[in-house]
């Protein structure tokens, strides 16, 4: 298996699975930050839109004292052979060379959902319904993120709106646009236990540079060679092993995701 080194000036997210309490604050903060509408009455866990989705994973009786864990699943921002980019007939997915962020251009999206089929992490969501907010609530939309329409795919982009805002403030201080900037996605800011850390390994914000090399760090489905930019941490062996599993853990009775 070839391994592509992620550029240290690109952003990575490190999620400590042992610290996640499954409270869902990241999911709510994400939806508010990124103008994801409340669910349509018919939406389910398969048809809803949750850029950040926390799933509960059971050990199935072989957990070393930990019967289950929670895993927050944002888009894994694959660095190599990004599957959604490869399959998109519209060039609606782009990997930014500077930040490493995989970005979905919803306006260009055709809604064919090839990318959803291609994504090994089930991190992409299709808008089965028009986004609708209760009357008046549309005034509370975040001006930094454009709302999407029915019939297009969307996903986590490491709070790209916040990245741009950080860039603008760096520019205000005379910093050139090629320099990396420090910012934090909404999920990381909202996490009560600081289980989600974010930054560039080069700058080592929130210690991410050290954490990605720690012995408890792992990534999901590494054998696919997609080199995700989302790292996980766990001291529990079974959680680290689960990430290597032959089969994806999104269905079945032991995983509620």
């Amino acid at each position: 298996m070839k391994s592509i080194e992620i550029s240290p000036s690109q952003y990575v997210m490190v999620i400590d699975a042992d610290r996640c309490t499954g409270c869902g604050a990241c999911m709510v903060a994400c939806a508010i930050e990124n103008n994801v509408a409340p669910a349509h009455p018919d939406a389910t866990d398969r048809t809803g839109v949750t850029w950040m989705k926390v799933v509960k994973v059971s050990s199935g009786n072989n957990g070393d004292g930990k019967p289950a864990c929670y895993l927050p699943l944002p888009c894994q921002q694959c660095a190599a052979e990004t599957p959604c980019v490869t399959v998109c007939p519209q060039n609606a997915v782009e990997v930014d060379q500077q930040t490493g962020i995989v970005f979905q251009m919803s306006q260009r999206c055709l809604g064919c959902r090839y990318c959803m089929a291609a994504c090994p992490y089930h991190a992409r969501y299709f808008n089965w319904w028009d986004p609708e907010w209760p009357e008046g609530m549309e005034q509370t939309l975040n001006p930094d993120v454009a709302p999407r329409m029915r019939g297009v795919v969307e996903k986590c982009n490491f709070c790209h709106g916040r990245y741009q805002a950080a860039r603008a403030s760096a520019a205000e201080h005379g910093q050139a646009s090629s320099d990396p900037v420090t910012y934090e996605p909404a999920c990381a800011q909202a996490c009560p236990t600081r289980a989600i850390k974010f930054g560039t390994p080069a700058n080592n914000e929130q210690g991410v540079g050290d954490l990605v090399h720690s012995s408890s760090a792992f990534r999901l489905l590494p054998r696919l060679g997609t080199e995700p930019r989302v790292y996980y941490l766990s001291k529990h062996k079974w959680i680290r092993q689960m990430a290597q599993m032959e089969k994806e853990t999104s269905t079945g009775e032991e995983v509620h995701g």
Partner: protein
Amino acid sequence: MNSGRLSFLAGLVGMLLIGWVFFPSLLYQKEPQPLQFSHAVHTGEAVGMTCDNCHTFTADVRSMAIPRLSNCKECHSEVLGESEAEKRLVDEFVAHDREIPWRTYSRQPDNVYFSHIQHVQIAEIECERCHGSHGKSETLTDRQINRISGYSRNIEGQIIPGLRFKAWDRMKMDDCSDCHDERGASNSCLKCHK
């Protein structure tokens, strides 16, 4: 000229008239500005202001550098001249501390991210490069909103067939990316879209 050719011409000319004259006025909805304002007076020799006296750029891109009432109040806390517009400014807005609901000509669609600060301060692009002689205009024209797309005519281009002779004639995505190409700036989608 026979009648057949005449009817043909009548249809042709009629349609051309409709297409070139009536269609644009039908397509765009005119929205008058809440208050008249002369850029020329302010930037003229008598006052001698520059663009960035009022259009201040901060990292806060959402305010779009449209001056706030506080900019006006610095000088116009009470009536200075004789113009009707100034009287209205003081009576209706300054007196009640009410922001002027300016209609932004160059408001980009919601999925566009644009930061003045990066263009003006970092890339050192002149205001005229995109806004032309707006800074020397005597009056504020009506904003024209496309009834179908909802975009401002300043974005789509004043010249109806979509031609562009001067840099500020049109502000569509291709125009942005042309300039980015010229200057070697990145044309990645993420740079300007949100």
